[in-house]
């Protein structure tokens, strides 16, 4: 291992190759994400951003190359093992428990995190710590009054927020947000990111986002993906002024 522990990236990919049949998404992707960073991935549609998130979470397996988490190769572990190791994600399109309420949804997440999700005859009502933590999380995100409302009847913005709360409930080391502000108004998007900036604290956050205002305002650093390659990885300032980026992405 050529990295010392303190500078070891949380997430790393080595020569990651991904193809769907004849369609090559990534040729040889080498990517490293330092601990504690709030990192944005931007790039035109079809650049492989969501595929990248799915490769990191294990919903997809690469055709070659490796994914490393805290220095350990996780390429062949299951999505569940990666969650247990500390990787959580949200989805670009809301992926919630429509018929359940937010409180029950969070209790599911917390019970699983605490290893209480297996076969049992103990009523949820007796898991008071889980209910307390779930309620506190919802309150933190301003969802306290919606805790018992059926999820699918909640306004879209609140469902979007719940998507993030569910992932944060797992206390991940690495949080992957796939276009968290998709479908939100500009103000809602900024509000969501403002809350995220406060509540994620030390958590390393990797987010895909199309709104450049959000990216340049909230990201510590930015990676630009285009045509299955990492074009540049730098601070928002440098990326904004980078010639190649303007060429491939900003179209100027």
């Amino acid at each position: 291992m050529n990295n010392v522990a303190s500078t070891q990236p949380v997430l790393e990919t080595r020569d990651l190759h991904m193809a769907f049949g004849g369609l090559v998404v990534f040729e040889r992707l080498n990517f490293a994400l330092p601990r504690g960073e709030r990192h944005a991935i931007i790039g035109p549609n079809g650049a492989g951003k969501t595929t990248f998130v799915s490769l990191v979470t294990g919903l997809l397996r690469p055709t070659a190359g490796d994914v490393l988490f805290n220095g350990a190769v996780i390429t062949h572990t299951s999505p569940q093992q990666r969650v247990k190791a500390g990787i959580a994600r949200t989805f670009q399109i809301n992926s919630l428990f429509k018929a359940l309420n937010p409180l029950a949804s969070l209790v599911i997440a917390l019970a699983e995190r605490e290893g209480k999700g297996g076969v049992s005859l103990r009523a949820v009502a007796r898991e008071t710590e889980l209910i307390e933590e779930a309620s506190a999380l919802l309150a933190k995100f301003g969802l306290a009054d919606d805790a018992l409302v059926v999820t699918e009847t909640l306004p879209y913005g609140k469902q979007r927020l719940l998507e993030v709360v569910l992932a944060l409930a797992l206390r991940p080391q690495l949080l992957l947000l796939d276009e968290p502000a998709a479908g939100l108004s500009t103000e809602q998007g900024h509000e969501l990111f403002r809350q995220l900036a406060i509540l994620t604290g030390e958590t390393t956050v990797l987010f895909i986002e199309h709104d450049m205002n959000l990216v340049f305002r909230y990201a510590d650093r930015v990676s630009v993906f285009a045509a299955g390659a990492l074009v540049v990885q730098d601070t928002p300032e440098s990326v904004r002024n980078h010639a190649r980026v303007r060429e491939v992405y900003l179209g100027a």
Partner: protein
Amino acid sequence: MSLTNPQAPAAAGKRYFSSVARWGYGEIIFWAALLAIFFVPDANLPLFGQIVIWGLFAMSLDLLLGYRGIPSMGHAAFFGIGAYAAGYLGKFGWTEPISGLVFAMILAGIIGWLTGRLIQRVSGIALLMVTLGLNLILYDIVHRQSELTGGDDGLQGVVIAPVLGLFRFDIFGRTAYLYALAVTFVLFLVARALVKSPFGLALLGARENPRRMIMLGTPIERDVSAVFGIAAAMAGAAGALLTQTTQFVSPATLSFQRSADVLVILIIGGTGRLYGAFVGAFVFLFLRDWLAALSPVYWYFWIGFLLVIVVAFFRKGIVPSLETLARRVRRR
């Protein structure tokens, strides 16, 4: 107010989950009524015994279909396994009913768990086909091995000792009814506790959105085999109860017809409620009894008619429709 008191949201949450777990008046009345039937003079106890057994059988399917969203077209396989297991024990000298029942449950549960492992990665129509296929295979085996199973004639000479060594199975079906009711009630308590536990919530979550469950770290495949095993064990208990209370096993216990009937019962009564199974069994068996007396050949016409009516006008079945009605009345 939630803004002024940080404890308020948690208190509301606790109240909510307590109310979910609490016994409602309707539930208490339901079980008290089933017990009261025993004391009604001239009640048709054999019919009510059948209702309880079919209710238990349909409830086991509800765990799969209503809570986990797994449709099974072959649930009679586990009922039949339980029925034959209890039958063989009784025929070959192990006549004590409760241990026979437990053995039948364990056997059906193991086979159900294995089935669950087999179908973990299957979903939708393919799931219907696999469960149906397993049911047909089992039915054919029993049918062909007639020296072992009695074939069409069924398993004769099943002897069942008195329950707890005290209560003989009488010709009026009095012991049979109380025995079936007691076993069903105990298994209902287990199912009720299960669906109100975090595991029950996880089943609902996986029914709603398996992809999200994976991303919460839930081993949803392991949960499928677990709930399949539990549901199969309970179906096996229903089969064993039928054998023990009738002292006979027919290959019809694992026929496809029975798999279809139990699905009809559950859908008429309503899924995801546990009680829907019992209400469906009550309606189905009462109608069958009544219609069979009117015209013995054509009663399936009316069952089909009822199914169409319920699905077209009540959508979710009798129990959920009644719940909606009750909510509306209360709001007024």
